[in-house]
């Protein structure tokens, strides 16, 4: 009797923990839909989705890095740099496929550089990527002489407002990326190895996993995500802003962690990242609809992030306690 109850509470707790972002999101949406009738309009919903495309794809890469026990704080500035570089190429008349491939290749190369410096000199990724972020920001400003780049060709704007049938192209691209990353991180051997590195890199190495190679790949894939996110963001704003991407790495941390991928690595929830991005966007959107001052919105956003992390910590403590009790009662 006793045993059964603790088993059920473990399962329930686990379910809540795995889906906490979705649960908070649903609660939030329910409350907001009572407060305003403007929320559930197709235009508003579509808007919310279009606004998260770039940050979601960026967060997907970030999810992989965090799950592998590393961090990449350069993604925001890397995005800005790739945005400006590709916009300049597009304006100069370079054909679309070349520009698109360049975005991805530059991203991958930047990731390679991050990983190379951190691993070769055995430095903390936190500092390396923080510094590399400054480098990318500097390159960005040098490239465009601190001026934003407009007059993008139509194909570039397609990344912001294109449609395939009734579905906006950026949303489709984002969903495809989510699907690819779910398979890559949660279904392939590479994903397993990356998670093993995140869980215990020393043990992973002893198991015969080529940990150095895996971390290189992790950073490069993250860079590729940044490249695609840069195309999406630049396309949506229809110009490459010099400040684009700045600070986005912190939004990434928020949505990834809310989504259920812990900062400590070893665990991952790729779909949760999408939910996390949605939650953050829904908060701003609904506060907007309710006419709340944008400064207050920031405070609300911060509060929700802290709330989610407290929930995570307390929840896993509770879960541990339930488990220890279970082990003890089983002898």
């Amino acid at each position, binding site marked *: 009797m006793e045993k059964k109850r603790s088993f059920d509470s473990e399962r329930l707790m686990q379910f809540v923990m795995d889906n906490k972002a979705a649960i908070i999101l649903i609660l939030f949406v329910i409350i907001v839909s009572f407060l305003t009738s403007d929320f559930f309009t197709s235009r508003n919903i579509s808007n919310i989705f279009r606004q998260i495309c770039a940050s979601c794809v960026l967060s997907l890469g970030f999810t992989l890095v965090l799950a592998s026990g590393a961090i990449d704080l350069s993604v925001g500035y890397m995005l800005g740099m790739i945005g400006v570089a590709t916009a300049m190429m597009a304006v100069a008349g370079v054909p679309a496929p070349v520009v698109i491939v360049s975005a991805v290749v530059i991203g991958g190369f930047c990731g390679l550089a991050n990983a190379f410096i951190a691993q070769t000199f055995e430095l903390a990724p936190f500092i390396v990527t923080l510094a590399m972020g400054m480098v990318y920001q500097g390159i960005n400003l040098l490239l465009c002489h601190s001026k934003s780049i407009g007059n993008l060709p139509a194909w570039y704007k397609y990344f912001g407002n294109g449609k395939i049938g009734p579905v906006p192209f950026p949303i489709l691209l984002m969903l495809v990326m989510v699907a690819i990353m779910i*398979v890559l991180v949660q*279904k*392939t*051997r*590479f994903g*397993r*190895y990356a*998670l*093993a590195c*995140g*869980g*215990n890199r*020393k*043990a*992973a*190495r*002893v*198991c*015969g*996993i*080529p940990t150095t190679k895996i971390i290189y790949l992790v950073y490069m894939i993250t860079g590729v995500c940044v490249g695609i996110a840069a195309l999406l963001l630049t396309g949506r704003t229809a110009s490459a802003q010099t400040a684009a991407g700045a600070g986005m790495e912190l939004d990434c941390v928020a949505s990834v962690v809310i989504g259920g991928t812990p900062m*400590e*690595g*070893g*665990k991952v929830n790729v779909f949760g990242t999408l939910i996390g991005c949605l939650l953050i966007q829904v908060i701003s959107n609904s506060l907007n609809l309710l006419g709340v001052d944008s400064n207050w919105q920031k405070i609300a956003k911060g509060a929700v992030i802290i709330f989610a992390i407290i929930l995570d910590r307390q929840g896993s403590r509770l879960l541990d306690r339930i*488990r*220890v009790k*279970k*082990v*003890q009662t089983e002898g």
Partner: protein
Amino acid sequence: MNQEKQSEQYLLEVKNLSKSFLGVMALNKVSLQVRKGEVHAVIGENGAGKSTMMNIIMGDLKRDEGEIILRGKAVDFRSPADAIDAGISMIHQEISLVPTLSVAENIWLGREKGFMKGPFIGEGVRKARTKELLDRMGIAGISPSQAVSELTVAQMQLVELARAVSTDAEIIIMDEPTSSLSDKEIDILFRVMRDLRDHGVSIIFITHKIEELLTISDRVSVYRDGCYIGTNACADTDKEQLITMIIGRTLTEQYPQISPPGEKTVLEVRNLTGEAYRDVSFTVREGEIVGFSGLVGAGRSEIMRGIFGIDKTFGGEVLLDGKPIHVKQPRDAVELGMAMVTEDRRDMGIIRSASVKENMSVSMLKTFTGPLGIVDVQKERQTVSAMMQEISVKAANMDMLITSLSGGNQQKAILGRWLMLEPRLLILDEPTRGIDVGAKAEIYRLIGQLAAQGMAIILVSSEMPEILGMSHRIYVVRDGRIVFTCDREEATQDLLGLHALG
């Protein structure tokens, strides 16, 4: 003998202290009685429970049961600060001084109140007090204004001792203070210790070195496997008696029948040299279990880590099946058919965030990987499930976190991880540490079976009965060298203990 001493008033008394970590018994009703003004040695192999007991006394760990009585009153310290206030200080094995600060600053760190002149620290008074303290303790050659980073390790230990004395400690616990000192430095340390004792301070001296403790201590208490074995007056005991007490004579564990080894040499190591070992040479044959005995820190694990590519080696040769191999990282070793269960399960064994299944399959995922690199979970589950049954890993299901398993089952899961690869050579570093007796017996049985099937096995263990019960041949390592080797028939605990302790 103990009966009549009970009437005596002890300064510190530990009674029936017990502590377990997640079901593993670290201390089982242990006792310790310290008189005023004595040097009391505490000895035992690693895992005997010495540090756990000291950490409980200092209020760093909570006890499960038992009493700590200080000056006749039961006490319960919540933190080391409480213990220090009550007159107990501990000097840890690792130096805990701030290297950039001066000797005087370090000694009075956190207790500057007595020197304040308004809002500022009275530097002169502090230095004078430090000088006085060092002089009183007979410590020469250290200036109060010197930066700690300029001192030798031995001098740093004296500064730590001075800090303990400056808190008016009546009891000072010293955790292996001599492990990194030269003979001359040890003499100086011992002189200061004797002086303190003569001034009524009690010193609890944790050590591994028997000869050393016999020269400095008044009494010695021995612990083994979390149990209290006994206390002897140093005048009435000798090295042989203590060794017997430390390693024990209990051959209670059931060891399986070990079949004779094959003829073919699988592993040959020639003059291997690394950071913690030199000129190590040995061989392992097919179906042979080779035991590596010695004290913790003698370099046994380091040798194995070198062979397996976890750490770098500086020189020497390793041959597998007669062919020289060059292992640069564990991956190379795994591909050559070697496997290693590492000493520290938490640090280099389990992946804590992963399930039992993921932990077991991680080394052979390649076999389960289909096109596009996608893992065939069905096949993975079947293989893991079969292995779990074969070596009887007890888990509700394979998807639970590995950390929810008992220590013994975690260890079996890790063994299973390697056995699925069917290695030629299996290195086991302390495979039964922190595991209950039942699981131990199962692991022994498994090792015996694997050897009978022809696997070459290296067994590193600090538990002598285990080495004696399982190995065909035994090497003893001391200070990074193989100092003794013998066959199973010749080996006795006393013989191995003598060579291990030097």
